[in-house]
């Protein structure tokens, strides 16, 4: 099975700072969920705009609205998929994320994902939130 092969040949997590497969999928699902949320907001804005359009022009916007709605559902589905897999994914197998992260051209996205993966992007004095047990 391909998944099994991947896990068997992937590097075992030896460096505590390297993201695991589980954390990587978790971060990925969060980003997809955010993209879905942005689509849902766009859908709402377009819907509000619809009321201001002459009826003859509403057909085009209706089609766009349908497309945005489908995209939101698509992204929500993918986020759920990645989230569910992340919950069952191994936490002791390192994910090779360096090349993938370097390939992200959207700066804010790369920075957020690096943060989530625990990879420092620049020296900072911020305290790592870590896993503080409060209760």
């Amino acid at each position, binding site marked *: 099975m391909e998944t099994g092969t991947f896990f068997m040949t992937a590097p075992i997590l030896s460096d505590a700072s390297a993201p695991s497969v589980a954390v990587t999928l978790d971060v990925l699902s969060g980003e997809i*969920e955010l993209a879905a949320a942005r689509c849902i907001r766009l859908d709402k804005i377009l819907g509000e705009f619809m009321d201001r359009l002459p009826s003859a022009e509403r057909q085009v916007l209706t089609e766009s609205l349908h497309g945005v709605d489908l995209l939101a559902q698509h992204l929500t589905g993918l986020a759920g998929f990645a989230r569910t897999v992340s919950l069952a994914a191994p936490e002791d197998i390192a994910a090779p994320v360096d090349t993938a992260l370097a390939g992200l051209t959207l700066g804010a996205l790369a920075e957020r994902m690096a943060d989530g993966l625990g990879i420092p992007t620049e020296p900072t004095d911020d305290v790592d939130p870590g896993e*503080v047990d409060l209760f």
Partner: protein
Amino acid sequence: MPPTRRVLIVDHDRTTLEMAEIRLEVAGYDAVAVRDAVAALKVLEAGDVDAVVLERQLPAMASLQILEALASTVPVLLTGRKLTDEHIEAAAAHGVCAGLAKPYSGAALLERVDRMLAEGAPACAAEPEDAWLEV
């Protein structure tokens, strides 16, 4: 028209924070999103917060600090990675009435906030509603 309900979201993770803010705003809430305890306490001092979505793993015991400042005056939805029944039960004494394990979906967040703020919703009890816990 009923007054807009104000929800304070406290989460160190920018992706989760923005996703939650968008989903709550689109649903008609006045969402205030902050990343740390200092900003959260400022919002709480200003008053008019109807509910709080609080990450359990903020640095330097900040989550507990925020719960103590709230003094069980508003319902709190506790979020966090590897959140367990024990965490929710322990936090119930501080006004937490529901929990949501991260990573969570926007739909799950909305469902819980809606339920916490629903007309006639019971006040947060000392015993948490385990059924609300998404693992």
